């Protein structure tokens, strides 16, 4: 029973971890808490749906097309909206991303209507693999592997590529990055692109278990956000761990306390974690200097 709990927790946690990672990548680079993250992923998922259903392309092509679309979407949003705000406060940034959220939510609803659609990913949610009494669906397995793979790729990207190191430098010290010749505006655009791609993957993996409608990513968004906050908002490792932790806690709560109220666990977790560690579990706390 407990082993199964861990498996289920890991599966759903992988999804949260992906959303959290997408969030943290942007937050680290520019301190923008991206409330549009969920809708960006939702729109990308719809794009995949459109390719699959209306254009009848094979799902490999659809997936690739979706990733390209997601990357472009992220860069375009950053360029069109986020960059326009001059000397923004935290509230300004939240409002801008909420504005983008509304725009994307509205556009998706306008384009594809409010009715719920089934997302035809050719990986089964019901067929299962059995390993030593533990059961896991093909989709969950794919999600877990995809999450691990992406984390590995991200790690390699930040560790070994010049642009990855430049991105880390930009995250840590904007001004210092500029005086070393890093074009921080480009870096920011790429950051949004990468984040959007990660979100899109989460969306495509999540859609089959839910139904595709404009509200698709609301729940994963707040869970991902909660995971990111638990991890500390500016630690990639923290975000991933936060995701798994939240998935696990949620399943634990669902099993032993109440299945009905499982979805408020995220809120309780945020409040509890932040009460004891205001900057998250895996992050240093900085005092403001005067």
């Amino acid at each position, binding site marked *: 029973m407990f082993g199964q709990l861990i498996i289920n927790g890991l599966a759903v946690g992988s999804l949260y971890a992906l959303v959290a990672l997408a969030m943290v990548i942007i937050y680290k680079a520019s301190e923008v808490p991206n409330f549009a993250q969920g809708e960006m992923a939702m729109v990308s998922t719809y794009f995949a749906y459109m390719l699959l259903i209306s254009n009848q392309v094979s799902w490999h092509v659809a997936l690739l097309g979706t990733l390209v679309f997601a990357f472009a979407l992220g860069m375009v949003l950053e360029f069109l909206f986020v960059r326009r705000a001059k000397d923004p406060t935290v*509230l300004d940034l939240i409002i*801008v991303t*909420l504005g983008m959220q*509304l725009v994307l*939510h*509205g*556009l*998706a609803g306008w*384009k594809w209507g409010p009715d719920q659609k089934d997302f035809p990913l050719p990986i089964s949610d019901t067929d299962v693999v059995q390993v030593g009494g533990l059961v896991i669906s093909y989709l969950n397995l794919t999600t877990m592997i995809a999450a691990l793979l992406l984390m590995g790729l991200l790690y390699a990207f930040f560790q070994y590529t010049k642009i990855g190191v430049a991105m880390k430098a930009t995250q840590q010290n904007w001004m210092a990055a500029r005086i070393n010749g890093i074009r921080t505006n480009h870096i920011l655009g790429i950051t949004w692109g990468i984040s959007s791609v990660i979100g899109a993957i989460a969306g495509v993996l999540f859609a089959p278990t839910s139904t595709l409608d404009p509200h698709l990513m609301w729940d994963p968004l707040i869970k991902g956000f909660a995971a990111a906050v638990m991890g500390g908002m500016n630690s990639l490792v923290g975000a991933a761990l936060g995701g798994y932790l939240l998935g696990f806690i949620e399943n634990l709560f669902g099993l032993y306390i109440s299945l*009905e109220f499982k979805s408020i666990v995220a809120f309780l977790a945020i409040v509890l974690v932040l009460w004891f560690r205001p900057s998250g579990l895996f992050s240093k706390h900085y005092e403001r200097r005067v």
Partner: protein
Amino acid sequence: MDMKRDYFEDVQLLKDRAQKIWFGILIITLILFPFVSPNYYIYLINYIAINVIVTVGLNLLIGYTGQISLGHAGFFAIGAYATTLLMLKLHVPFLLAILIAGFLAAAFGFLLGLPALRLEGPYLAIATLGFGMAVTTIIGRVPLFGGHMGLQTPPLSIGPFVAKNDREIYVVIMLFTFLMTLAARNITRTRVGRALIAIRDSDIAAEALGVNIAYYKTLAFAISAFYTGVAGGLMAFVLGFINPNIFDLLQSILFLAMVVVGGAGTILGSVMGAAVVSFLHIKLEAVQNIPGVGQFLVYLSQKWLSVSGLPNFTFVLFGLILIFIVVFERLGLYGIWLRSKIYWRTWPF
């Protein structure tokens, strides 16, 4: 400009004759309005007035104290459900019920304000967002609250007076709105209000001047939750029924939009913002009927998007307005109003 003779004139509500005249005209208009207006507009104005209460309260938190909340739909729901249930199950009279509901919301606001003491910026936003979603989840799943079907609101009665239609509810709502807006204005102009703004502008300096930050931050949360709770209670009567879907994340964002559109940190702006956003929100529900624009949008929908999804145009527009305000006019409508006032002052008469 006339000369001041007394410091009291500094703290008065209406500073000169022009303001007094405008204020008088406003009151007379509000009194006469139900006698001359068609029913539909009374519904609209009720809806706007309730949003004014929320926006004023939320602005005390966001605009004045500089704390963010994306969970005010939660307080709105608490107020609506508490008022309705108190009246339905315990037969508490309306005025008492709505006051209790307000204070209940304030108590939740205080509780949410406690973790908020240690959080700032995005952390606070996400915690409050989680709160709002938690409230609707709980309401939707507990049988007492009527689950997803919701509850029917009882008739609004104060003693022998029973408000049977929008016109009579108008009287009650307008009194609440008027008094609560005035109260907020008084609060912002005195010691408490200054302390709130001080926390927003520089919490460190505020502390060093003896402002108890913990007290005022939780106070701001409680007051703003009280306003929202009372407004929620009133909204139950305007709608006639309540269910959890009314109080979702989009509602919270809409409240935030009202504050931002009106101008963070001004009471007058809150009134303007609530009015404009509420008006647009109602009007755009049938956007296809607006001449010109409506036809164009229908054409656009047929050609590229979908006609069944056209109501979503509201979200797109509101989203763009929010972004527009941050980029071009941080003070929102109030900022535009200030500028035009300066323009007219120098206009050659």
